[in-house]
């Protein structure tokens, strides 16, 4: 079956005075119907820019340089501004990191969600209001009638993020992009919001692209994971294989640097070295300067993407020709 969203070889670069920053450089991933795909990586690796590219919300000096973003078989990059505007919030919805600044402070929260419906559908204000109240119930907001008339500052962060989820779902999107949706929330609320997202996926069948740097969130929520490093995806795998046996040295390093409850250690194991400047990237594999298994060949050309198990892809020379590591 063809995937719902298929991103192929996406390149989004930022053109600064100091030179072009290749924030996203040849990223390919796909999202099946009803799937939750986690996009993980450290700050600045291009996860957010990838998601903004899918929505075509990259502002100058950034620009999508090349690639294809196939949504239901249509290339989003070929659509006009107006066609794209009609898709946003309708078929493709987005949730942001900071719930407290995600809503317009001068209007009531309910009216803003209703507005999101009215932008895309010809329904009466009253019908929109009814639907908002039902959505608010769906995302677990007590006393929706009263909450509808309240302003954003009268909500807690968790409640507001529920409202943002309701707003994102207002037009029954088929793809929901959640950019660090729980990072600004405390842990108990995080779990509630993640459960909510999963539950809504089960109920509405929407696909979710979940962007996060938190492996805990990934383990909790995702079906499949893509790991990004410096604008490229280095490893893609279903959840269990990735957590049990990560293959790419960067993924291995990431897991090694996470503290474990069952072990008492004096020091965590960081990945040695630092991320190279995006203005001055090394040739070949970008992780080479920090990789404990680097080979001579790693410096020559970009590593190929190998399928080492069903649905498990790694961009690393170590697994070429049957694999050695």
């Amino acid at each position, binding site marked *: 079956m063809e995937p719902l969203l298929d991103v192929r070889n996406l390149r989004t670069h930022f053109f600064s005075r100091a030179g072009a920053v290749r924030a996203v450089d040849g990223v390919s991933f796909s999202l099946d119907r009803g799937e939750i795909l986690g996009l993980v990586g450290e700050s600045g690796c291009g996860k957010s820019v990838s998601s903004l590219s899918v929505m075509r919300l990259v502002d100058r000096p950034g620009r999508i340089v090349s690639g294809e973003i196939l949504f239901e078989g249509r290339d989003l990059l070929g659509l006009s501004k107006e066609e794209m*505007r009609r898709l946003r919030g309708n078929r493709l919805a987005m949730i*942001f990191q900071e719930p407290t600044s995600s*809503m*317009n402070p001068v*209007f009531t929260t309910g009216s803003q969600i209703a507005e999101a419906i009215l932008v895309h559908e010809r329904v009466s204000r009253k019908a929109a209001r009814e639907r908002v109240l039902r959505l608010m119930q769906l995302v677990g907001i007590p006393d929706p009638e009263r909450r509808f008339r309240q302003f954003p500052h009268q909500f807690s962060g968790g409640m507001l993020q529920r409202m943002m989820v309701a707003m994102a779902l207002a037009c029954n999107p088929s793809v929901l992009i959640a950019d660090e949706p729980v990072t600004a929330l405390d842990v108990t609320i995080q779990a509630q919001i993640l459960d909510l997202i999963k539950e809504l996926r089960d109920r509405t069948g929407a696909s979710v692209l979940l962007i996060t740097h938190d492996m805990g969130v990934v383990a909790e929520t995702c079906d499949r994971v893509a790991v990004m490093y410096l604008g490229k995806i280095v490893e893609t795998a279903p959840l269990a294989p990735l957590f049990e046996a990560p293959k790419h040295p960067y993924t291995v390093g990431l897991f090694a640097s996470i503290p474990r409850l069952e072990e008492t250690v004096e020091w965590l194991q960081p990945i040695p070295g630092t991320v190279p400047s995006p203005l001055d990237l090394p040739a070949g594999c970008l992780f080479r300067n920090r990789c404990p298994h680097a080979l001579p060949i790693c410096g020559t050309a970009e590593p190929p993407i190998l399928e080492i198990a069903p649905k498990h892809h790694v961009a690393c020379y170590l697994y070429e020709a049957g694999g050695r590591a």
Partner: protein
Amino acid sequence: MKLLSRLSRAVWAFTRDYKLGALGGALVLLFLTVALLAPQLAPYDPDTISLRESLAGPSARHWLGQDNQGRDLLSRIIFGARMSLYISLSAIGIGAVFGVLLGMLAAYYRRLDMPIMRLMDVVLAFPGIIVALTTIAILGRSVNNVVIAIGIYHIPQFARLVHGLTLSIQETVYVEGAVASGESDFSVLTRYILPNCLASIVVQTSLLIPGAIMTAATLSFLGLGVPPPTAEWGSMLQNSLQWAQMAPHVMIIPGLALMLAVFGFNVLGDELRDAMDPRLKKR
């Protein structure tokens, strides 16, 4: 009804926390009432000449005395208030409408930024009175041309304010979210950016009005404002110069009116700015 009670509660809280501002507000209200009801309130026709009573001092019949042509000063002050407020409010209105529009467009459409804002800088580079004098010289002398002249100078004042605000509001997540949920440019500008600029625009308006009143009076004083014999504070002051030694009230009274009006708008604007800035909240 609900809005009215909320408004009256806000006015009450402002009066309690900002005494000076409330005094300014009262003065502004007084001048506005006087201006609106000028024909009803003025005891005499402001232009009726009575040369036998030239320069007469305050009396029971003419509370504030009479000018060199025997015209009733109180009536002239009252009609002068109407003129001053008409000029300053409409001029600021013109400045606000065009300034807000240009400022928002310049910030929202980056392409327009350079031409619009540099043009604003050019206007700003000249002192206000020079811009006004030049405009009057080109358009000719009339009340509405004075309004246009002062209005033009205030466009960049609003444009710069709104330009800056728009730039920062544009970067907020809720605007990004609005775009991500498919809102059109028009609705982003009118439903997200403009309402969030409103508080600052209100404050800016009340802060600029006294300047506009002064500029209008200055233009008349220089003989380029409202043509005589229309009652206007600036031209009354100009006219009084020759008689100031013999009859100081002819000069003091319009001067006092001008001062009180400017003072009223100034402190109201100042304290309104403090009241609307949450960081400067008095408790």
